[in-house]
């Protein structure tokens, strides 16, 4: 069966000529992947595997760098570079500070 990322040859509508300047967070995600690759902590194949394992609903819903970010997080957890708990705590901290700032 064809996987959801395998789009070649499928029917689709017109190509919308969209472009946007990448946001800083998107560039950071890109840069993180390159640096993790340089350090031997993540390979392109792992990025692909994680993205192709997101499930079609998430794949469709997420933007390009959201997919990358989800994949990097998954691989970093898988490799034990960060833990789910650490990430959860850090995100809670950031959200708390953001709420205070509002």
């Amino acid at each position: 069966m064809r996987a959801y990322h395998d789009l070649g040859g499928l029917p689709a509508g017109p190509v919308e000529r969209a472009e946007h300047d990448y946001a800083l967070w998107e560039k950071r995600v890109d840069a993180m992947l390159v640096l993790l690759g340089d350090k031997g902590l993540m390979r392109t194949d792992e990025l692909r595997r994680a993205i192709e394992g997101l499930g079609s609903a998430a794949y469709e819903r997420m933007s390009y760098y959201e997919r990358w970010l989800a994949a990097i997080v998954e691989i970093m957890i898988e490799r034990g570079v960060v833990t789910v708990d650490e990430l959860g705590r850090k995100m809670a901290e950031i959200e708390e500070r953001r709420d205070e700032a509002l």
Partner: protein
Amino acid sequence: MHDGHDHPTLPERDEELNRAQITEMALRQLLHEKGVITADELRRQIETMDARTPAQGAAVVARAWTDPAFKARLLADGAAACREAGISTGPFNLVVVENTPEQHNLVVCTLCSCYPRYVLGLPPDWYKSKAYRARAVREPRAVLAEFGTVLADGVAVRVHDSTADMRYLVLPMRPNGTEGWSAPRLAELVTRDSMIGVAPARDP
């Protein structure tokens, strides 16, 4: 599912973007704290990425138009020729495909978004879009026509599907009326889209 007033983007979308930004921030801070990636490394990598633009590819194309020996080297080994021209190509193979009056080349990545980013910078959104990835391999002439590129019936189209390790760059045809032009002047006619293959180089 509409709350009665118009938003430029859906509210769910905004929340999701926020969530991505928070996740990015959290991961980045953890990687800094653990000494995996320093803030300096990240900043330098972003600067390096920002410095990669289609102007690099354009310089390579213009040199190939004016230097037949360089063109032969570029077509034989794209990565080596780019390095010779002072452009790093990272770990990827680069295949340069030449447009001729008989054959037009088009680059796509049907599975994801592989792109000669070392030579052209980051890809435009449409290159990563579902429609482009799906249709470029099935009806390239129709896709080209949407970009304003209408090929004569006698011109063959070859579509190159990129992979993680194999990136493609189109060497567009040199526009007529540019005889005697210097390479820097020619480079101004070489657009990003002409090196993806969706458009010809600009006319002088």
